[in-house]
Protein backbone atom coordinates (compact mmCIF):
# COMPACT_ATOMS: atom_id res chain seq x y z
CA UNK A 1 0.00 0.00 0.00
CA UNK A 2 1.35 3.42 -0.89
CA UNK A 3 1.75 5.80 2.02
CA UNK A 4 0.27 9.29 1.86
CA UNK A 5 2.68 12.01 0.72
CA UNK A 6 4.40 13.76 3.61
CA UNK A 7 3.43 17.32 4.41
CA UNK A 8 5.73 20.07 5.64
CA UNK A 9 4.66 19.46 9.24
CA UNK A 10 5.80 15.82 8.91
CA UNK A 11 9.35 17.11 8.46
CA UNK A 12 9.25 19.04 11.77
CA UNK A 13 10.46 17.21 14.83
CA UNK A 14 8.82 17.19 18.25
CA UNK A 15 11.55 19.48 19.58
CA UNK A 16 10.16 23.01 19.89
CA UNK A 17 12.38 25.89 18.75
CA UNK A 18 13.68 28.18 21.46
CA UNK A 19 14.59 31.03 19.11
CA UNK A 20 13.34 34.46 20.16
CA UNK A 21 9.81 35.26 18.94
CA UNK A 22 10.29 37.42 15.83
CA UNK A 23 13.45 35.58 14.74
CA UNK A 24 13.74 34.98 11.00
CA UNK A 25 15.02 31.45 11.56
CA UNK A 26 11.45 30.24 12.19
CA UNK A 27 10.71 31.20 8.63
CA UNK A 28 13.78 29.32 7.37
CA UNK A 29 12.69 26.17 9.24
CA UNK A 30 9.25 26.56 7.67
CA UNK A 31 10.77 26.96 4.20
CA UNK A 32 13.17 24.02 4.63
CA UNK A 33 10.34 21.68 5.64
CA UNK A 34 8.10 22.95 2.83
CA UNK A 35 10.89 22.34 0.31
CA UNK A 36 11.49 18.85 1.73
CA UNK A 37 7.79 18.07 1.34
CA UNK A 38 7.63 19.53 -2.19
CA UNK A 39 10.62 17.40 -3.22
CA UNK A 40 9.16 14.38 -1.38
CA UNK A 41 12.56 13.79 0.24
CA UNK A 42 12.92 10.64 2.28
CA UNK A 43 13.48 11.55 5.92
CA UNK A 44 15.81 8.56 6.18
CA UNK A 45 17.98 9.71 3.29
CA UNK A 46 18.25 13.40 4.11
CA UNK A 47 20.81 14.88 6.48
CA UNK A 48 20.89 18.41 7.85
CA UNK A 49 24.35 19.40 9.08
CA UNK A 50 25.12 22.54 11.05
CA UNK A 51 27.82 24.28 13.03
CA UNK A 52 27.23 26.37 16.13
CA UNK A 53 24.97 29.36 16.74
CA UNK A 54 21.28 30.18 16.90
CA UNK A 55 20.69 29.13 13.28
CA UNK A 56 22.67 25.92 13.73
CA UNK A 57 19.99 24.63 16.07
CA UNK A 58 17.77 24.00 13.05
CA UNK A 59 18.60 20.30 12.46
CA UNK A 60 17.16 19.48 15.89
CA UNK A 61 13.83 20.94 14.83
CA UNK A 62 13.60 18.89 11.63
CA UNK A 63 12.54 15.27 11.34
CA UNK A 64 15.46 13.84 9.38
CA UNK A 65 18.98 12.79 10.20
CA UNK A 66 21.02 15.66 11.56
CA UNK A 67 24.43 16.56 12.85
CA UNK A 68 24.94 19.59 15.08
CA UNK A 69 28.66 19.88 14.60
CA UNK A 70 31.66 21.94 15.56
CA UNK A 71 31.70 25.73 15.15
CA UNK A 72 32.36 26.63 11.51
CA UNK A 73 32.85 23.01 10.49
CA UNK A 74 29.37 22.16 9.26
CA UNK A 75 30.50 22.38 5.63
CA UNK A 76 33.48 20.08 6.24
CA UNK A 77 31.23 17.43 7.79
CA UNK A 78 28.58 17.87 5.10
CA UNK A 79 31.06 17.46 2.23
CA UNK A 80 32.69 14.43 3.84
CA UNK A 81 29.30 12.84 4.33
CA UNK A 82 28.22 13.47 0.74
CA UNK A 83 31.46 12.06 -0.67
CA UNK A 84 31.14 8.95 1.51
CA UNK A 85 27.40 8.56 0.90
CA UNK A 86 26.51 10.14 -2.46
CA UNK A 87 23.04 8.61 -2.24
CA UNK A 88 22.07 11.01 0.57
CA UNK A 89 20.62 14.50 0.23
CA UNK A 90 22.89 16.71 2.32
CA UNK A 91 21.97 20.22 3.41
CA UNK A 92 24.39 22.29 5.50
CA UNK A 93 23.06 25.22 7.52
CA UNK A 94 24.55 27.88 9.71
CA UNK A 95 24.83 31.55 10.46
CA UNK A 96 27.01 34.41 9.27
CA UNK A 97 29.51 34.05 12.10
CA UNK A 98 29.72 30.29 11.79
CA UNK A 99 29.99 30.33 8.01
CA UNK A 100 31.92 33.45 7.14
CA UNK A 101 34.23 33.89 10.14
CA UNK A 102 34.93 30.75 12.14
CA UNK A 103 34.22 28.57 9.11
CA UNK A 104 35.27 31.08 6.46
CA UNK A 105 37.97 28.89 5.02
CA UNK A 106 35.64 25.92 4.72
CA UNK A 107 33.17 28.17 2.91
CA UNK A 108 35.80 29.18 0.34
CA UNK A 109 36.85 25.63 -0.35
CA UNK A 110 33.31 24.28 -0.42
CA UNK A 111 32.56 26.81 -3.19
CA UNK A 112 35.76 25.80 -4.99
CA UNK A 113 35.36 22.05 -4.54
CA UNK A 114 31.75 21.92 -5.75
CA UNK A 115 30.52 18.85 -3.88
CA UNK A 116 26.83 18.20 -4.57
CA UNK A 117 25.38 19.70 -1.39
CA UNK A 118 23.27 22.73 -0.49
CA UNK A 119 24.50 25.37 1.93
CA UNK A 120 21.97 27.70 3.58
CA UNK A 121 23.63 30.62 5.37
CA UNK A 122 21.16 32.35 7.68
CA UNK A 123 22.59 35.85 7.90
CA UNK A 124 21.37 38.20 10.64
CA UNK A 125 24.59 40.24 10.75
CA UNK A 126 25.16 39.51 14.42
CA UNK A 127 26.35 36.88 16.90
CA UNK A 128 23.00 36.33 18.58
CA UNK A 129 23.72 33.34 20.76
CA UNK A 130 26.50 35.20 22.57
CA UNK A 131 24.31 38.28 23.07
CA UNK A 132 24.82 40.51 20.09
CA UNK A 133 28.39 41.14 18.94
CA UNK A 134 29.40 42.27 15.45
CA UNK A 135 29.80 39.48 12.91
CA UNK A 136 31.56 39.41 9.51
CA UNK A 137 28.49 40.85 7.79
CA UNK A 138 27.73 43.61 10.33
CA UNK A 139 27.63 47.15 8.91
CA UNK A 140 30.79 49.15 9.44
CA UNK A 141 29.00 51.70 11.64
CA UNK A 142 26.69 49.43 13.69
CA UNK A 143 26.98 50.83 17.21
CA UNK A 144 24.65 48.55 19.17
CA UNK A 145 27.28 46.39 20.84
CA UNK A 146 29.23 47.58 23.84
CA UNK A 147 32.16 45.62 22.44
CA UNK A 148 32.24 47.89 19.37
CA UNK A 149 30.57 51.11 20.61
CA UNK A 150 31.75 53.07 17.56
CA UNK A 151 30.90 50.27 15.11
CA UNK A 152 33.14 47.40 14.04
CA UNK A 153 35.05 49.77 11.74
CA UNK A 154 35.67 47.13 9.09
CA UNK A 155 33.88 46.57 5.82
CA UNK A 156 31.25 43.84 5.88
CA UNK A 157 31.84 40.56 4.10
CA UNK A 158 29.89 40.18 0.83
CA UNK A 159 28.80 36.54 0.81
CA UNK A 160 27.63 36.37 -2.81
CA UNK A 161 30.77 38.05 -4.15
CA UNK A 162 33.07 35.82 -2.11
CA UNK A 163 31.15 32.69 -3.12
CA UNK A 164 31.44 33.70 -6.77
CA UNK A 165 35.17 34.41 -6.53
CA UNK A 166 35.71 31.04 -4.87
CA UNK A 167 33.89 29.23 -7.67
CA UNK A 168 30.35 28.57 -6.42
CA UNK A 169 28.28 27.57 -9.48
CA UNK A 170 24.83 28.37 -7.99
CA UNK A 171 24.18 31.46 -5.87
CA UNK A 172 20.81 32.70 -4.64
CA UNK A 173 19.45 34.99 -1.96
CA UNK A 174 16.23 34.71 0.03
CA UNK A 175 14.53 36.74 2.73
CA UNK A 176 12.89 35.35 5.85
CA UNK A 177 9.89 37.61 5.24
CA UNK A 178 9.08 35.63 2.09
CA UNK A 179 9.01 31.98 3.18
CA UNK A 180 7.36 30.65 0.04
CA UNK A 181 9.97 32.16 -2.28
CA UNK A 182 12.61 30.75 0.08
CA UNK A 183 11.02 27.29 -0.09
CA UNK A 184 11.14 27.45 -3.90
CA UNK A 185 14.81 28.48 -3.86
CA UNK A 186 15.71 25.70 -1.40
CA UNK A 187 13.91 23.24 -3.62
CA UNK A 188 15.89 24.46 -6.65
CA UNK A 189 19.13 24.48 -4.67
CA UNK A 190 18.69 20.86 -3.60
CA UNK A 191 17.79 19.86 -7.16
CA UNK A 192 20.91 21.58 -8.53
CA UNK A 193 23.70 19.11 -9.23
CA UNK A 194 26.74 20.56 -7.46
CA UNK A 195 27.34 23.06 -4.66
CA UNK A 196 24.42 25.46 -4.20
CA UNK A 197 24.73 28.47 -1.94
CA UNK A 198 21.61 30.14 -0.58
CA UNK A 199 22.24 33.35 1.34
CA UNK A 200 19.23 34.09 3.55
CA UNK A 201 18.57 37.50 5.07
CA UNK A 202 17.14 36.32 8.38
CA UNK A 203 16.35 39.07 10.84
CA UNK A 204 17.43 39.14 14.50
CA UNK A 205 14.74 41.24 16.11
CA UNK A 206 16.34 41.03 19.56
CA UNK A 207 19.77 42.45 18.83
CA UNK A 208 19.13 44.23 15.52
CA UNK A 209 15.55 45.58 15.72
CA UNK A 210 16.38 47.90 12.82
CA UNK A 211 16.30 44.82 10.56
CA UNK A 212 12.50 44.95 10.60
CA UNK A 213 13.03 47.63 7.93
CA UNK A 214 14.47 45.03 5.57
CA UNK A 215 10.97 44.34 4.27
CA UNK A 216 10.91 47.83 2.77
CA UNK A 217 14.12 47.36 0.77
CA UNK A 218 14.14 43.69 -0.17
CA UNK A 219 13.11 43.15 -3.78
CA UNK A 220 12.87 40.14 -6.03
CA UNK A 221 15.11 39.76 -9.07
CA UNK A 222 12.98 39.75 -12.18
CA UNK A 223 15.65 38.96 -14.75
CA UNK A 224 17.07 35.51 -15.41
CA UNK A 225 20.10 34.54 -13.31
CA UNK A 226 23.46 35.77 -14.52
CA UNK A 227 25.61 33.13 -16.16
CA UNK A 228 28.78 35.11 -16.80
CA UNK A 229 31.09 35.25 -13.78
CA UNK A 230 32.58 38.62 -14.77
CA UNK A 231 29.17 40.19 -15.11
CA UNK A 232 28.10 38.64 -11.81
CA UNK A 233 31.23 39.94 -10.06
CA UNK A 234 30.46 43.50 -11.15
CA UNK A 235 26.89 43.04 -9.99
CA UNK A 236 27.76 41.54 -6.58
CA UNK A 237 30.39 44.18 -5.77
CA UNK A 238 28.05 47.04 -6.51
CA UNK A 239 24.74 45.73 -5.22
CA UNK A 240 22.84 46.68 -2.07
CA UNK A 241 22.57 43.06 -0.99
CA UNK A 242 18.78 43.11 -0.86
CA UNK A 243 17.99 41.54 -4.21
CA UNK A 244 16.47 38.08 -3.79
CA UNK A 245 16.06 35.16 -6.15
CA UNK A 246 18.43 33.01 -8.14
CA UNK A 247 21.28 35.43 -8.86
CA UNK A 248 23.93 33.34 -10.63
CA UNK A 249 24.00 29.92 -12.23
CA UNK A 250 26.86 28.42 -14.16
CA UNK A 251 26.91 24.65 -13.67
CA UNK A 252 30.17 22.70 -13.86
CA UNK A 253 31.19 19.17 -12.99
CA UNK A 254 30.95 18.46 -9.29
CA UNK A 255 33.60 16.82 -7.13
CA UNK A 256 34.67 14.08 -6.81
CA UNK A 257 34.93 13.15 -10.49
CA UNK A 258 33.02 10.06 -11.57
CA UNK A 259 36.12 7.83 -11.66
CA UNK A 260 36.69 8.45 -7.96
CA UNK A 261 33.12 7.69 -6.95
CA UNK A 262 33.27 3.90 -7.14
CA UNK A 263 33.23 2.54 -3.59
CA UNK A 264 36.47 0.81 -2.67
CA UNK A 265 36.34 -2.68 -1.19
CA UNK A 266 38.17 -3.51 2.01
CA UNK A 267 40.63 -5.57 -0.07
CA UNK A 268 41.36 -2.53 -2.28
CA UNK A 269 42.02 -0.35 0.72
CA UNK A 270 44.21 -2.99 2.36
CA UNK A 271 46.15 -3.30 -0.90
CA UNK A 272 46.77 0.43 -1.06
CA UNK A 273 47.99 0.53 2.51
CA UNK A 274 50.40 -2.39 2.06
CA UNK A 275 54.02 -1.23 1.97
Amino acid at each position, binding site marked *: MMSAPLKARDYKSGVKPIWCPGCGHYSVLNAVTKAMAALALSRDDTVLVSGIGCSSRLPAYAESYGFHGVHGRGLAVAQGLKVARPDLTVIALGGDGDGFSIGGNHFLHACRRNVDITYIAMDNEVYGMTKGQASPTTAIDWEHSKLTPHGPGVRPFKPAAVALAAGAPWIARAYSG*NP*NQMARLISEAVSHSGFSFLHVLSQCITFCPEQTDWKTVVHEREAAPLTDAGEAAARFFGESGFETGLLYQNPRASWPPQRQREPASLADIAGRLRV
Partner: protein
Amino acid sequence: MSGAMELKRFLAHALEMEEEAMNRYRELAEALREHNNLLVADFFEAMAGESAKHLEEVKSFPIAGDLPVFDPWDYDWPADAPESTSYEAVHYRMDLRRALELALENEREAQAFYAQYAESTTDLETARLASSYAAEEADHARRLEERLKHLPPTSPSQFEDDDPAHIPE
Protein backbone atom coordinates in the same frame (compact mmCIF):
# COMPACT_ATOMS: atom_id res chain seq x y z
CA MET B 1 -11.65 25.48 -16.09
CA SER B 2 -14.85 23.56 -15.26
CA GLY B 3 -17.01 24.57 -12.29
CA ALA B 4 -16.02 21.46 -10.32
CA MET B 5 -12.34 22.09 -10.93
CA GLU B 6 -12.70 25.74 -9.98
CA LEU B 7 -14.39 24.74 -6.72
CA LYS B 8 -11.65 22.21 -5.95
CA ARG B 9 -8.99 24.78 -6.68
CA PHE B 10 -10.67 27.22 -4.31
CA LEU B 11 -11.01 24.62 -1.56
CA ALA B 12 -7.33 23.69 -1.90
CA HIS B 13 -6.45 27.34 -1.30
CA ALA B 14 -8.84 27.65 1.66
CA LEU B 15 -7.47 24.47 3.18
CA GLU B 16 -3.85 25.57 2.88
CA MET B 17 -4.67 29.04 4.23
CA GLU B 18 -6.53 27.80 7.30
CA GLU B 19 -3.99 25.07 8.05
CA GLU B 20 -1.08 27.47 7.72
CA ALA B 21 -2.85 30.00 9.99
CA MET B 22 -3.52 27.33 12.61
CA ASN B 23 0.04 26.02 12.56
CA ARG B 24 1.51 29.53 12.64
CA TYR B 25 -0.61 30.59 15.62
CA ARG B 26 0.43 27.41 17.45
CA GLU B 27 4.11 27.99 16.73
CA LEU B 28 3.88 31.59 17.89
CA ALA B 29 1.98 30.53 21.02
CA GLU B 30 4.71 28.03 21.85
CA ALA B 31 7.44 30.62 21.26
CA LEU B 32 5.71 33.25 23.41
CA ARG B 33 5.05 30.69 26.16
CA GLU B 34 8.73 29.72 26.10
CA HIS B 35 9.52 33.38 26.74
CA ASN B 36 6.96 33.65 29.52
CA ASN B 37 4.61 36.00 27.70
CA LEU B 38 1.62 33.94 28.79
CA LEU B 39 -1.12 36.44 28.00
CA VAL B 40 -0.14 36.64 24.34
CA ALA B 41 0.63 32.91 24.20
CA ASP B 42 -2.90 32.10 25.40
CA PHE B 43 -4.39 34.49 22.86
CA PHE B 44 -2.46 32.94 19.97
CA GLU B 45 -3.47 29.49 21.20
CA ALA B 46 -7.11 30.57 21.16
CA MET B 47 -6.69 31.93 17.62
CA ALA B 48 -5.17 28.58 16.59
CA GLY B 49 -8.37 26.98 17.92
CA GLU B 50 -10.48 29.34 15.79
CA SER B 51 -8.45 28.49 12.71
CA ALA B 52 -8.78 24.77 13.52
CA LYS B 53 -12.57 25.13 13.54
CA HIS B 54 -12.52 26.91 10.19
CA LEU B 55 -10.17 24.27 8.84
CA GLU B 56 -12.60 21.53 9.84
CA GLU B 57 -15.39 23.43 8.13
CA VAL B 58 -13.39 23.55 4.89
CA LYS B 59 -12.43 19.89 5.18
CA SER B 60 -16.00 18.82 5.73
CA PHE B 61 -17.28 20.46 2.54
CA PRO B 62 -18.77 17.62 0.48
CA ILE B 63 -16.90 17.22 -2.78
CA ALA B 64 -16.11 14.20 -4.91
CA GLY B 65 -12.49 13.35 -5.65
CA ASP B 66 -9.17 14.71 -4.45
CA LEU B 67 -8.27 18.37 -4.27
CA PRO B 68 -5.39 19.57 -6.44
CA VAL B 69 -1.97 19.73 -4.80
CA PHE B 70 0.20 22.81 -5.23
CA ASP B 71 3.77 23.54 -4.30
CA PRO B 72 3.89 26.19 -1.56
CA TRP B 73 5.02 28.86 -4.02
CA ASP B 74 2.26 28.12 -6.54
CA TYR B 75 -0.69 29.30 -4.47
CA ASP B 76 -2.41 32.59 -5.37
CA TRP B 77 -0.57 34.67 -2.79
CA PRO B 78 2.78 36.35 -3.23
CA ALA B 79 4.84 35.55 -0.13
CA ASP B 80 2.90 33.95 2.67
CA ALA B 81 -0.65 32.69 3.15
CA PRO B 82 -3.01 35.66 3.84
CA GLU B 83 -4.17 34.63 7.31
CA SER B 84 -0.71 33.75 8.66
CA THR B 85 1.00 36.09 11.08
CA SER B 86 4.48 36.90 9.83
CA TYR B 87 7.10 35.19 11.99
CA GLU B 88 8.86 38.52 12.06
CA ALA B 89 5.96 40.63 13.32
CA VAL B 90 6.10 39.35 16.88
CA HIS B 91 8.35 40.21 19.81
CA TYR B 92 8.89 38.50 23.12
CA ARG B 93 7.77 41.70 24.91
CA MET B 94 4.69 42.37 22.77
CA ASP B 95 1.45 43.16 24.59
CA LEU B 96 -2.02 41.74 24.04
CA ARG B 97 -3.12 44.80 22.07
CA ARG B 98 -0.35 44.28 19.53
CA ALA B 99 -1.24 40.59 19.28
CA LEU B 100 -4.89 41.46 18.63
CA GLU B 101 -3.88 44.03 16.04
CA LEU B 102 -1.85 41.37 14.20
CA ALA B 103 -4.75 38.92 14.35
CA LEU B 104 -7.06 41.64 13.03
CA GLU B 105 -4.73 42.26 10.09
CA ASN B 106 -4.82 38.50 9.38
CA GLU B 107 -8.61 38.34 9.44
CA ARG B 108 -8.87 41.34 7.13
CA GLU B 109 -6.37 39.81 4.71
CA ALA B 110 -8.27 36.53 4.73
CA GLN B 111 -11.54 38.35 4.16
CA ALA B 112 -10.03 40.29 1.26
CA PHE B 113 -8.67 37.09 -0.27
CA TYR B 114 -12.01 35.28 -0.11
CA ALA B 115 -13.93 38.33 -1.31
CA GLN B 116 -11.59 38.77 -4.25
CA TYR B 117 -11.92 35.08 -5.10
CA ALA B 118 -15.71 35.37 -5.01
CA GLU B 119 -15.57 38.34 -7.34
CA SER B 120 -13.15 36.87 -9.85
CA THR B 121 -14.50 33.32 -10.22
CA THR B 122 -16.95 32.43 -12.96
CA ASP B 123 -18.36 29.47 -11.03
CA LEU B 124 -21.46 30.33 -9.01
CA GLU B 125 -20.93 27.62 -6.38
CA THR B 126 -17.34 28.76 -5.78
CA ALA B 127 -18.48 32.38 -5.57
CA ARG B 128 -21.17 31.49 -3.03
CA LEU B 129 -18.74 29.54 -0.84
CA ALA B 130 -15.98 32.17 -1.08
CA SER B 131 -18.50 34.88 -0.13
CA SER B 132 -19.65 32.93 2.91
CA TYR B 133 -16.03 32.42 4.05
CA ALA B 134 -15.38 36.14 3.52
CA ALA B 135 -18.40 36.93 5.70
CA GLU B 136 -17.09 34.65 8.45
CA GLU B 137 -13.69 36.35 8.38
CA ALA B 138 -15.39 39.75 8.50
CA ASP B 139 -17.28 38.59 11.57
CA HIS B 140 -14.03 37.46 13.23
CA ALA B 141 -12.54 40.86 12.45
CA ARG B 142 -15.52 42.67 13.99
CA ARG B 143 -15.16 40.64 17.19
CA LEU B 144 -11.47 41.49 17.41
CA GLU B 145 -12.20 45.18 16.79
CA GLU B 146 -14.73 45.10 19.62
CA ARG B 147 -12.26 43.47 21.96
CA LEU B 148 -9.59 45.99 21.05
CA LYS B 149 -11.84 48.83 22.20
CA HIS B 150 -11.61 47.55 25.77
CA LEU B 151 -7.85 47.17 25.91
CA PRO B 152 -5.56 49.89 27.26
CA PRO B 153 -3.28 51.61 24.75
CA THR B 154 0.13 50.10 24.19
CA SER B 155 2.65 51.40 26.67
CA PRO B 156 5.53 53.36 25.12
CA SER B 157 7.82 51.22 27.27
CA GLN B 158 6.38 47.98 25.87
CA PHE B 159 9.74 46.75 24.63
CA GLU B 160 11.76 47.89 27.63
CA ASP B 161 13.24 44.95 29.43
CA ASP B 162 14.29 44.94 33.10
CA ASP B 163 16.72 42.21 32.18
CA PRO B 164 17.84 43.29 28.71
CA ALA B 165 19.28 40.83 26.26
CA HIS B 166 22.38 42.99 25.76
CA ILE B 167 24.88 42.44 28.55
CA PRO B 168 28.03 44.44 29.38
CA GLU B 169 31.01 42.86 27.68
